[in-house]
């Protein structure tokens, strides 16, 4: 038996387990995008050290060969918010679609194209940033000038996600042709919904770059309207956080329950959650602009309501994922109100990392509700409260979940056993402790008025804000997170370079349902219909805004200030 399993594993990892489903020519671009994502995490994370230490006056950016704190912060933001998340999302969701639909992706050309555009985008943006020609942070607000290569690079990263979106939609269609009158498999469906949401959401940034920023930087337009540019940016800028989050939700809903031996409650509810995310993620962007001067107050209130609506599916997620975990804990012999928690397989680094990520997400979500709460936002807007908040969401709920996923995904893709399991466990706990200290520090400093996106270590007003202790917590917590990141890469490289070959090909762990797809009403499988609902909500949230805002106030030429 093992004699036949071995050569199989050598041929390309666990993925060969299903002939004709996982094709080598589709797997290499998936692996390539995962590799780009992890490079983004490594380099971007390293900048985090420089930023964390800066809080307490340890200014080391010159030692990292950077021109300024802000050049490093641009690298951090672009690599972590765009490359890491997009690369991981493309790779993971594509793979889950293949597994979910039990068929290859509809187009090999598109999946390879996604890899090449991501690579090209990364190289262009990296070149511009490293030459100090794009020190504009990952938000690149006009009228700050950056090299056109930077915009082109960022645009290519988005193109790569859109190619993936198209491929997923085509794959679902192909499946439907092969299985008329059946509900699409949930694992495939949720990935397609994620990318369809993103296709609608990315429209803002695409229009911004193609019709405003590029022509303006190239000199074809003399001036632009910074307030309107920000509206377009944040049209995409809030929904993007759901695009980061939804791949982690896919794992929490459909993979982790299997890993802990539990079942998902019902197919319908998972679909409902993803559909709500599809329709409510986009019409919410103005809650990032509550304190913008040029936006009519009535529209801010409209977006307050849509923002609270999009919190709803996340609250439901908190409850249902917990229930699936409890199901697993009890199946493993857990008793009493909370006894099941200790019975969960905490010794499995993939599980531990994701459970800790979920715990941190509770705090991340709670602080997010503070930001979203209209007038409370006055207190925290653009203070270090905000990075305190989002290192618990994207910086941990998403990042630590992605890390946890790779603890099975990389063995799966490479056919090598995970090495250093204890190190991996230590990694997850260190990140958890680190981010709690970090966030505690950033949040408290923010409430005292410390601004974000500022080189506090070089700021003349540093001692005028009495956040000394809080800044130390940020620095220490951030350093622990970076050490945890280093442990992570040790585990991954060890696995890739010296991991034992798996004796048997691995299976992707997919959870079972109590109530499966057959019991789901057809309405919850109608993607086109829900997309249309999403478009209508976007129209309601944005068309009156445009009407009230226009005409454009194009008054700003490009300005270089770095």
């Amino acid at each position, binding site marked *: 038996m093992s004699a036949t399993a071995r050569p199989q594993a050598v041929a390309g990892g666990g993925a060969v387990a299903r002939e004709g489903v996982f094709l080598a020519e589709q797997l290499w671009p998936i692996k390539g995008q995962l590799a780009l994502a992890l490079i983004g995490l490594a380099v971007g994370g390293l900048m985090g050290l420089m930023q964390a230490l800066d809080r307490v006056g340890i200014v080391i950016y010159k030692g990292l060969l950077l021109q*300024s704190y*802000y050049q490093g912060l641009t690298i951090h933001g672009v690599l972590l918010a765009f490359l890491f998340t997009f690369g991981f999302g493309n790779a993971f969701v594509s793979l889950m679609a293949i597994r979910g639909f039990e068929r290859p992706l509809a187009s090999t050309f598109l999946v390879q194209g996604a890899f090449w555009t991501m690579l090209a985008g990364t190289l262009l943006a990296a070149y511009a940033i490293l030459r100090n020609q794009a*020190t504009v*942070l990952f938000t690149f*607000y006009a*009228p*700050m000038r950056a090299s056109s290569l930077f915009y082109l690079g960022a645009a290519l990263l988005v193109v790569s996600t859109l190619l993936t979106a198209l491929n997923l939609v085509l794959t679902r269609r192909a499946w439907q042709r092969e299985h008329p009158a059946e509900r699409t498999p949930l694992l495939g469906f949720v990935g397609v919904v994620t990318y369809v949401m993103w296709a609608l959401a990315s429209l803002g940034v695409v229009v911004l770059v193609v019709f405003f920023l590029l022509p303006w930087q190239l000199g074809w337009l003399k001036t632009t*309207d*910074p*307030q309107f540019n*920000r509206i377009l940016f944040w049209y995409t800028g809030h929904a993007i956080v759901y695009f980061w989050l939804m791949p982690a939700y896919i794992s929490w809903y459909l993979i982790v329950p299997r890993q802990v031996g539990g079942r998902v*409650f*019902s197919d319908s*509810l998972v679909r409902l959650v993803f559909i709500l995310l599809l329709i409510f993620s986009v019409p919410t962007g103005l809650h990032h602009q*509550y*304190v*913008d*001067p*040029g*936006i*009519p*107050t009535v529209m*801010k209130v409209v977006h307050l*309501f849509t923002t*609270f609506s999009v*919190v*709803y599916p996340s*609250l439901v997620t908190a*409850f*249902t994922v917990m*229930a699936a975990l409890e199901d697993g804990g009890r199946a493993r012999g857990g008793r009493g109100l909370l006894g099941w928690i200790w019975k969960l397989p905490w010794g499995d680094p993939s599980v531990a990392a994701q459970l800790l990520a979920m715990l941190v997400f509770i705090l991340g979500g709670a602080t997010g*509700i503070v930001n979203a*709460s*209209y*007038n*409370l*936002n*006055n*207190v925290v807007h*653009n*203070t270090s409260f905000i990075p305190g908040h989002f290192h618990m969401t994207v910086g941990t709920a998403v990042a630590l979940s992605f890390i946890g996923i790779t603890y099975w995904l990389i063995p799966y893709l490479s056919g090598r056993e995970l090495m250093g399991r204890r190190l991996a466990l230590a990694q997850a706990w260190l990140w958890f402790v680190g981010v709690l200290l970090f966030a505690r520090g950033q949040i408290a400093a923010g409430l005292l*008025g410390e*601004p*974000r*996106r*500022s*080189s506090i270590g070089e*700021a*003349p*007003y540093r001692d*005028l804000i009495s956040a000394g202790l809080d800044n130390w917590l940020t620095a220490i917590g951030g350093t622990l997170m970076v050490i945890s990141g280093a442990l992570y890469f040790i585990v991954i490289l060890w696995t890739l370079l010296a991991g034992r070959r798996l004796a048997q090909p691995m299976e992707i762990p997919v959870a079972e349902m*109590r*109530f499966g797809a057959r019991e789901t*009403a057809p309405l919850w499988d109608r993607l086109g219909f829900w997309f249309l609902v999403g478009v209508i909500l976007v129209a309601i949230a944005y068309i009156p805004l445009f009407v009230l805002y226009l005409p454009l*106030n194009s*008054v*700003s030429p490009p*300005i270089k*200030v*770095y």
Partner: protein
Amino acid sequence: MRIETYERIFMVLAGLMLALGIVGIAIGALVAGVHVPSPAGRVDPRALSTTPPFDQPGLRDLGGGKYEAVLVARAWQFQPNEIEVPVGSTVTFTLASSDVIHGFELTGTNANVMVIPGQISQVTARFDQPGEYLWVCHEYCGFGHHQMYGKVVVR
């Protein structure tokens, strides 16, 4: 749609939590009077030095304990970067940028607003305690962003 009873309970609970949040916000806005900044007009950043009131930045006494502070934000300073008012004053800050996006955050108060080229920003704060109130630029505005700050001295 087939779902569990527990799931129904969660769904209702989640809805109630959010409704409660909205009620809290409404009380903050309608009863406590905490509002977000509203549009205060447009302006050409290239012509600030000839556009009132930004041609003469500084503090104006409006009488009755009310003041207007007209501030110009440019990389990387506020002009003026210090104002002085008596205890009990209410100050309306009117700001505009002459170049890139800046921010204005007055620590220890609810005054927080973006300063975006082309738009006039306005926020109000009341000073009931003597002391120094730091304000900072809280949007990245280039190489010297962290040097951009000012203060209100309340006597």
